[in-house]
């Protein structure tokens, strides 16, 4: 048991952290009624995946990936820069998703005067489903 704990949990703690964060985000998206909280959940979910990518890039004792002959000759190693670059792009995608979501929420607040999902569904039922 102890060995399993050490090998599978403590040695791979970075994966566990991102799994736990993902589940927290997922829970918020499913269980919360407030639309802003849903988006916060989505952000936590996305960030967990970003952390997973970044933790892939780690090289023990690695420095910033700026290559120079002098550094290589001294035997320095570099962290893998590619996941960082991917995540920069993914962050941009996440930010734009959040922006679109927030603007939708603002429009919904103007239409319905609330950001609780249940109330919005109720109010749109009263107006009829087509709601043109």
């Amino acid at each position, binding site marked *: 048991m102890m060995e399993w704990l050490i090998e599978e949990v403590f040695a791979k703690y970075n994966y566990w952290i991102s799994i736990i964060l993902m589940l927290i985000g*997922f829970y918020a*998206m499913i269980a919360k009624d407030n*639309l802003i909280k*849903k*988006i916060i959940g*989505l952000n936590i*979910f*996305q960030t967990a*995946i970003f952390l*997973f*990518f970044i933790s*892939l890039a780690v090289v023990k004792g690695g420095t910033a990936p700026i290559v120079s002959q002098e550094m290589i000759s001294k035997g320095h190693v570099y962290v893998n820069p*590619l*996941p960082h670059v*991917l995540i920069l*792009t*993914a962050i941009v*995608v996440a930010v*734009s*998703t959040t922006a*679109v*979501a927030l603007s*939708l*929420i603002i*429009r*919904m607040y103007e*239409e319905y005067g609330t950001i609780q999902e249940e109330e*919005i*569904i109720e109010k*749109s039922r009263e*107006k009829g*489903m*087509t*709601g*043109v």
Partner: protein
Amino acid sequence: MQTAIEHFPVLIVAISLFSAITILVAGWINKKTPPFISIATILAQFVASILILNHVLTKGPIHYWLGGWKPPWGIEYVVDVLNAYVLVILLFLGLACAVYSKRSIEHELPHKIVSFYAIYQLLITGLCGVTVTGDIFNMYVFIEIMSLSAYALIGSRGKIALKASFTYLVLGSIGACFFLLGIGFLYSVTGSLNMHDLSLLLPPLYGNRIVKAAFVLFIVGLSIKMAFFPLHTWLPDAHAFAPSEISAMLSGIIIEVCTYAFIRLAFSVFSVNFIRLLPIFDILCWVAGIAIIMGSILAMTQFNLKRMLAYSSVANMGYIMLAVGLSTSARNYPWCGLTPALMHILNHALMKGCLFLVAGAFIYKADLWDITELRGLGRKMPYTCAAFVIAAISMIGVPPSVGFVSKLYIIFASLEAKKFAFVAILLVSSLLNLIYFWRVIETMYMKGEEGEEHSHASISSKDEIPLSMLIPVLTLASLCIVMGVLWLAGITIPALNKVNAMFGLVVIR
């Protein structure tokens, strides 16, 4: 030595992106220009895509290295027969919807014409990008560009559409995150993102649990995006409340491009050998079977025409995924491998595009949303209703329409795979299709007009939609029959068979 056509894959994406910005600037100066810029751009893209298809069929795949960086380090655009085929379909439907939307958007969203077309161009950019790219991370980014513009376009009508768009956004983002996680898994074991490079690095790792997990993550992520049955919950609202041309694009192309992404990943990055290791395609077949039946049953219970069509899309994604699931076991010539699946991608785009555009025509003319309100329209809008009938009988599967051909081929494929249950499922679903489409046709042509004074008093005796809306509708409707004849004559099938040969699904004799 590169010819001009070898630059087209990147140009198709670039001119679309550029025209999105141009539309914003030009629309700021003169509000009348955006539709024309949009139509001209998509027309140019469409011509380019046909040239690409021709080049790919005669001379083989195009590889374009962005910035001259060699793969696997740089991003590579690869266009082979499969991409080129999907590209032509998507730009054709994109063109039809752009022509249609000129009048329709003036009516539905009079204050948002400029931003509508700018985002529409971004949507086309994303769709083209997903199709031409040969790099999985690049594919993720383009899927997100496409989805983000789709969210914005769905929400553009306001009110309940905002809620539909928000649901789609949350679910779509979860799907994209799963896709991203799958990429992370593959990257962690191979250290590569280029599709061709991955397909070389992966075979020794097929037993690895991380690779299997990555495959499952791709399936789940893309299933959300393509509204595959248990994950379809965002689709009905999004389709029903979006502007009609966007419904047509959503149903006809956006979910199909996600299917394309799935086919590309399953057969190009992974391979037939990997798929045969796992029972995953058998499971897919059964889920698709349930999707077909449930989609049809749910469609029968709807009163809103666009909602009914949306549920019918769920059933049709079932057809495509069933055909994909059967692709590894079907080997006899006309229906071998992926042919039925690819065929139905085109057929569904034509039929659903036409049906949603007709539904939009009813909304444009008299704000008619419910099936019961369509009484007597057969006489008032004869051409539109005729187009609806043609597309509807294609959905039912009357020969020689496109729907008949795809159903026939899927049935032959399932007979060959000795999975007779699916034959029954397909026949039952045709029957269900008949019931729910007949209900609409009956209301349009046969019901009397006793309820005339309240529902559509504004319609005079004969009142067609404007020509610029009618032409796309009629073109799509006539193509439903023309393509059906072409499929049956077997003229276009050898091209699709090249895809099968490429993925090692058939041995070329």
